[in-house]
C-alpha cells in the first residue's frame, strides 16, 4: 500500500534578525493509512513545525524553502489556497496542545464541532451534532448527550482535550496531527485521554502524527518513532526496536535520563529538631478552607517531595510556609522557633533563611534586569556587600550554578535558555545563603535532559551546603530521582507520608496507588495491560471520583 503522507527533503527556514535561518534541515517521512508515527525531541527540535508543515502550513515568519509534502498524491507545498482549504479540516485535522486555548470560549462545544462538517459540506448540522454525541460516547466523556451544550470553560481540561479529539474526527479525516495533546494534563487525566485517543484512532483506521517530548507516552501511542534534534532526524524505527535497542548516542541519552536516581540517605535521627515543621495547618482562601490539618517535618539536608495533582494544595502549603497566606489554624516553626504567620511580620533573617525557586523562570526573573542585578540584589540586601565585593560574590554564585560569570553577568533573562533561567533562579535563592529552599515544580517546564541537569545541580548543592528542600511536583519520576521523603496530598489533605522507599513499595493508600499506576512506563504494552487490569472505567477522573 502506498503512503498517505510522503515528505521528501523538507527544509524550513525561520526569519530572525533580517535573515532566514534553517529550522528543519531536510527531513523525510512516510506515513501509511492507519499508522501512528511518534515525533519526539526537545523543545526547539522542530517537532511542531514539521507537524504543521504536514498540513502545508507554516507559521508567520517561517517558510518551506525546499522539499515536498505529498498528501495522497497532492503536493501541499505548491498547492493553491483553494485546494488546501478543501483538505484541511476535512481530510487532515489538527489537535493542539492546549484545548482550553484552542476552543473559542464564546461558543458551545457542539457548535464548534459541527462547524467543519457543515463548512466542508460533509454533512448537515443536525447529523453532525448527532455524530458528535456518538463520538463523545466513544471517547467516554461523561453525559455525552449533554456535554456538547456546555461552553468550554464549563468542562475540565481532560474532557476538553477529548472533545477536541472528537472535533478533529468530525469529518473522519485520513490524518490527524496531535501536538502534545496531554502535556498540560495531570497523570490521572492524561491516561484517560491517551486511552481515548488510541481507541478512536484504531477504530476509524486514521493515520496520525503524535508529537510529544514524553517517551513513555509515545511508547503507548505510536507504531513507529522518529527522534529529532535541532531540525535533523536522529533516527527512526518501529516502537519496540527503538525502545529496546536505540542506535544513536542522543537517543540513548534520552533513554538514560529516566534512570537517574540519587542514593538513599540514612534514616533521620528522630530526636533532632526539624529545620521546618508544619504543624497542623488549616488555611483558607476567603471563607473556603483549602488545606485541612496538614503536618509534616523537613530535616536538615533532606528533600521532602510533596506530590499531588493540580488543586491538591501543594502550592498553597508552600504559600503558608513562606507567609504569603497566613494559616487559619496551626503554625510553621523554623529550627524549633514558631514563625509569624504573615511574611510582613517576619524579620529579615527569618525571610533570608527560607527561599523559593519558581516553576516558570520566565515570570520569576524580572525581564528588565540583568543577571548581575538579579543575583546581586539579595547579596546586597542581606549581606550588605557592594561594589567589587558584591561582584565577587555574584561570580561565585554563577560558578556554583555552572554558568561562566563574565559571559552571563550583563545578560538579560531573555537572552538565556529555559534551563539557564532556572539556574539563575537557583542562584538568586542561594545568594541569600538560606537553610531551606522551596522548589515549586522547578523542572516541569523543562526538557528532560535539561531537567536532569537541574536536579543533579540541586542534589550537589544539597550535599555541599547542607540545604533542605521542599520539592513540589506532580511528576513521580522526579520524586524517584531526588526525594528522601514523600508527602502525598489530595484535596488539601495529606493522604500518606513516609520515606521514599516505603512509598514506592506496596501496600499503598488507594490514591497513591492510582497515582503511581497512572505514570506511563517505557513498556509499549503498559497501557494495554493497565486497561486490562483496571478496566476502562477505573482509570483517571472516574477512579478519582470513586474514592
Amino acid at each position, binding site marked *: 500500500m502506498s503512503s498517505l503522507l510522503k515528505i521528501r527533503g523538507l527544509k524550513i527556514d525561520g526569519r530572525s534578525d533580517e535573515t532566514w535561518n534553517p529550522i528543519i534541515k531536510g527531513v523525510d517521512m512516510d506515513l501509511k493509512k492507519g499508522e501512528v508515527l511518534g515525533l519526539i525531541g526537545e523543545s526547539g527540535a522542530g517537532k511542531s513545525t514539521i507537524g504543521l508543515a504536514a498540513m502545508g502550513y507554516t507559521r508567520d515568519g517561517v517558510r518551506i524553502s525546499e522539499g515536498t509534502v505529498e498528501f495522497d498524491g497532492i503536493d501541499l507545498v*505548491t498547492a*493553491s*489556497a*483553494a485546494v488546501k482549504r478543501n483538505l484541511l479540516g476535512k481530510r487532515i485535522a489538527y489537535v493542539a496542545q492546549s484545548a482550553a486555548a484552542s476552543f473559542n470560549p464564546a461558543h458551545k462545544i457542539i457548535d464548534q464541532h459541527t462547524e467543519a462538517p457543515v463548512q466542508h459540506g460533509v454533512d448537515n448540522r443536525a447529523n453532525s451534532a448527532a455524530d458528535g454525541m456518538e463520538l463523545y460516547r466513544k471517547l467516554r466523556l461523561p453525559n455525552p448527550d449533554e456535554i456538547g451544550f456546555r461552553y468550554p470553560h464549563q468542562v475540565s481540561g481532560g474532557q476538553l482535550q477529548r472533545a477536541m479529539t472528537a472535533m478533529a474526527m468530525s469529518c473522519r479525516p485520513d490524518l490527524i496531527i496531535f501536538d502534545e495533546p496531554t502535556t498540560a494534563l495531570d497523570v490521572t487525566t492524561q491516561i484517560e485521554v491517551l486511552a481515548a485517543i488510541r481507541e478512536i484512532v484504531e477504530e476509524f483506521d486514521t493515520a496520525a502524527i503524535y508529537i510529544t517530548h514524553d517517551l513513555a507516552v509515545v511508547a503507548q501511542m505510536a507504531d513507529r518513532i522518529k527522534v529529532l534534534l535541532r531540525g535533523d532526524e536522529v533516527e527512526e524505527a518501529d516502537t519496540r526496536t527503538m525502545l529496546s535497542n536505540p542506535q544513536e548516542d542522543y537517543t540513548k541519552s534520552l533513554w538514560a535520563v529516566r534512570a537517574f536516581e540519587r542514593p538513599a540517605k540514612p534514616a533521620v535521627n528522630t530526636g533532632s529538631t526539624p529545620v521546618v515543621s508544619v504543624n497542623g495547618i488549616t488555611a483558607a482562601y476567603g471563607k473556603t478552607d483549602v488545606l485541612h490539618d496538614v503536618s509534616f517535618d523537613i530535616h536538615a539536608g533532606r528533600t521532602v517531595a510533596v506530590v499531588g495533582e493540580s488543586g491538591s494544595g501543594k502550592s498553597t502549603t508552600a504559600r503558608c510556609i*513562606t*507567609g*504569603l497566606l497566613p494559616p487559619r489554624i496551626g503554625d510553621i516553626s523554623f529550627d524549633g522557633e514558631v514563625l509569624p504567620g504573615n*511574611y510582613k511580620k*517576619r524579620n*529579615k533573617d527569618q*525571610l533570608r533563611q527560607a527561599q*523559593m525557586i*519558581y516553576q*516558570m523562570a520566565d*515570570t*520569576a*526573573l*524580572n*525581564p*528588565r*534586569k540583568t543577571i548581575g542585578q538579579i543575583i546581586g*540584589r*539579595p547579596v546586597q*540586601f*542581606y549581606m550588605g556587600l557592594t561594589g567589587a565585593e558584591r561582584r565577587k560574590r555574584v561570580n561565585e554564585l554563577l560558578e556554583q550554578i555552572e554558568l561562566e560569570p563574565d559571559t552571563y553577568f550583563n545578560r*538579560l533573562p*531573555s537572552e538565556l535558555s529555559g534551563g539557564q533561567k532556572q539556574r539563575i533562579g537557583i542562584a*538568586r535563592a542561594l545568594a*541569600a545563603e538560606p537553610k531551606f529552599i522551596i522548589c515549586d515544580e522547578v523542572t516541569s517546564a523543562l526538557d528532560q535532559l535539561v531537567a536532569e541537569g537541574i536536579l543533579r545541580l540541586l542534589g550537589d548543592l544539597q550535599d555541599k551546603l547542607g540545604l533542605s528542600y521542599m520539592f513540589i511536583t506532580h511528576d513521580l519520576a522526579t520524586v524517584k530521582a531526588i526525594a528522601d521523603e514523600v508527602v502525598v496530598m489530595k484535596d488539601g489533605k495529606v493522604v500518606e507520608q513516609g520515606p521514599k522507599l516505603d512509598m514506592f513499595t506496596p501496600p499503598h493508600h488507594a490514591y497513591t496507588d492510582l497515582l503511581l499506576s497512572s505514570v506511563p512506563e517505557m513498556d509499549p504494552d503498559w497501557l494495554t495491560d493497565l486497561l486490562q487490569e483496571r478496566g476502562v472505567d477505573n482509570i483517571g477522573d472516574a477512579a478519582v471520583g470513586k474514592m
Partner: protein
Amino acid sequence: MSGLLWFVAIVLSIALGAHVFRFAGQKLTGNAPKFRDMSYGVAFGYVLGAFLLFWSVWYYFQPKVLDTGVPNAGVVFFRWAVQGFIIASIAAFLFRLFGRVVGTDGSRKLFRSMPLTASFGILVILIYAIIAVFAGQIAPYGQAEILGAANVMAGGDPAIGGDPAYPLGTDQIGRDILSRLIYGAQNTVGIAFITTLLAFFIGGSLGFLAATLQGWLDQLLSRSVDVLMAIPSLIFALLLMTIASVWADRLGIPLTIFMVLIIAVIDSTRVYRLARAVGLNIVVMDYIEAAKLRGEGLGYLVFKEILPNAMAPLLAEFGLRFCFVFLTIAALSFLGVGIQPPLADWGTMVKDLAPFINFAAFAPTVAAAPLLAAGAIALLTVAVNFVVDWMLHKSSGLKE
C-alpha cells in the same frame, strides 16, 4: 447628482479592473502563487491604489488658476501638501543618513535600524526644541511688539498686499506672525511638556501604589478618579479655570500655573487608570512575589521592579497624552482662558486669525494664516506619535 454617478461609475470600473488585473496576472505569470492565491479584496486594493496614484499625478498638474481668474484652491493646497510631503521625506532621509555616519557607536546603531517615520519625528521634535529654547534669538521681532501695519498678507509680495519685512504677514493688530509662531513654540510646547510630566508623575505613582497595595487605598483612589473622569474634561477644565482666574488675581500667582495644575490633575486620571491596569498585571508576577518575600520596601518594588516593566505602555501613553494636553491648552487658549495675551500661543493664534479661513476659495495664501499655527500643532502631534510608535516597537521587540 452627476457627482454621485461619477463615483458609482469609478467604483464599478475599479471592481471590474480588479478582476481583470488578477486574471491577467494569473495568465501572464503562468499561475504564480502570488496571483493564484490572491483574494479579490487584495486585487481590489492594488487597482484602487493604482487609480489613486494616477489621479494624484493628474490633479497635481491641473492649472493653479481657473479660467474665470479665480485661484483653484484645491490644487494649490494639494500641491503644498505633496511638496511638503516630499521635502519632509527627503529631510528625514538625509537626517537618518547623517545619524548613521556621525555620532557614537551606539547612536549610529540606533539610526541604522530606524524607520523613516521615526527619523522624521525626531528631526521635527529637535527643530521644535531648538526653536523653543532659542526663541528670543531666532525671532525677528518680539512676541508682543505691535509693528504698525495690520493684516499684512503672507508671501511678502507687495503687489497683493504683502511686505518683505514680514514673510508670513502680520495679524489683526499688526504683530509679526513668524515671531509669534516661534514664541508660540516656547509657550505652548514648553507648558504642555511640563503639564504632561506632572500628570504622569501624579497618575503614575498613585496608579502603581494602588496596584501594589490594593485594598482600601485602591478603592479610595479609583473611585475618586471615577468621579473626576465622569465630568467632561474640557468643560471641567473651563469651570476650574474660571474659578482660578479669580484666585490668580487675588493671590498674585500667574494663571498659567493654575492651568498647568488643573490640566495635569485632570489628565492624571487617565494615566492613573493605565498605570494601575499595567501595574496589576505586573504585581502578580513571581519576581514581585520574590522581592516581597525578600522583605523589599514599597519604594524598591514600585520604582525598581514594576516601573521598568511598565515603561513601554507608559511611553506610548506619554506621546498620546502630550498631544492631548497640547490640544487642551490650545483649546483653552482658543476659548480665551488659557495662555493669556500678549503671550503668543498657537491656540490663540488660530482663534484670532480664524475668520480668514473663509477666504480659502478666493485667496489660498490669505487663508493659510490661521492654518500655520494649526499646522504647527498638527506637525508636532504627528512627529511625537511617530517617535513613540517606534520606541514602542523597539521595546516590545526586546522582550522576545
